[in-house]
């Protein structure tokens, strides 16, 4: 199954990879995606980003997203970790790791999970700079990417 965690604490990608691989010889492909806090350089420097979330709903939705990936691809293991709270530029926000026998399933399911996280996971980002604080707006491209998975045959 795909393990899911929502937490303030930083995660260690290498440690998470080791956990997925431990004692197994059936995994041929392990893909990880790490999302980072980025300073987009257009305007005053980003000083911090705060992620708000809806606790009761995040676990439920992440679990549903993970189950859907498990149904669609022949995965052997996986992990989703999403942080919340106040983060600094270059901090890690999210980890998606997928393991399968062959690389297609690992790559595709990781991309699917990120597209779904971007559009379904109940988190909201607020960026703070010298100019003040503002709520990040969702991107149309993220919504389009998520919708494309609906059209792709399994």
């Amino acid at each position, binding site marked *: 199954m795909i393990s899911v965690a929502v937490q303030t604490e930083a995660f260690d990608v290498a440690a998470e990879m080791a956990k997925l691989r431990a004692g197994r010889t059936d995994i041929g492909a392990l893909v990880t995606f790490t999302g980072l806090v980025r300073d987009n350089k257009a305007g005053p420097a980003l000083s911090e980003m705060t992620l*708000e979330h*809806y606790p*009761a709903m995040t676990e439920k*939705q992440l679990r549903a997203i993970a189950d859907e990936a498990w149904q669609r691809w022949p995965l052997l293991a996986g992990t989703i970790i999403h942080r919340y709270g106040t983060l600094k530029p270059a901090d890690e926000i999210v980890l998606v790791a997928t393991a399968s026998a062959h690389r297609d399933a690992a790559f595709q399911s990781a991309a699917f999970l990120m597209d779904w996280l971007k559009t379904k996971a*109940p*988190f*909201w980002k607020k960026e703070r700079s010298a100019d003040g604080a503002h709520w*990040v*707006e*969702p991107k149309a491209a993220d919504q389009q990417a998520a919708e494309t998975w609906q059209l792709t045959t399994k």
Partner: protein
Amino acid sequence: MPGVITIEYFAWVREQIGLATETWVLPEGAPTVDTTLDALMQRGAGYASALAVRDRLRFAINQDYALPSHGLKPSDVLAIFPPVTGG
């Protein structure tokens, strides 16, 4: 005894309304997310500005995504929030 729901607000919706959560008495008839928003807007101020443009809002009932036309029943938890920006 009238039915009561819990309403939760997030992000700029919470900031504009000034509340994270409140209880709400459901009226007679078949209340929906939409009719509840209309009634909340009657309070004016932050409610009116936060809830006016339905396109800018997303909804969940008992932690599942819901449409504005979705009905509400006693003990439901209605969450009102902007489109998500996680990941």
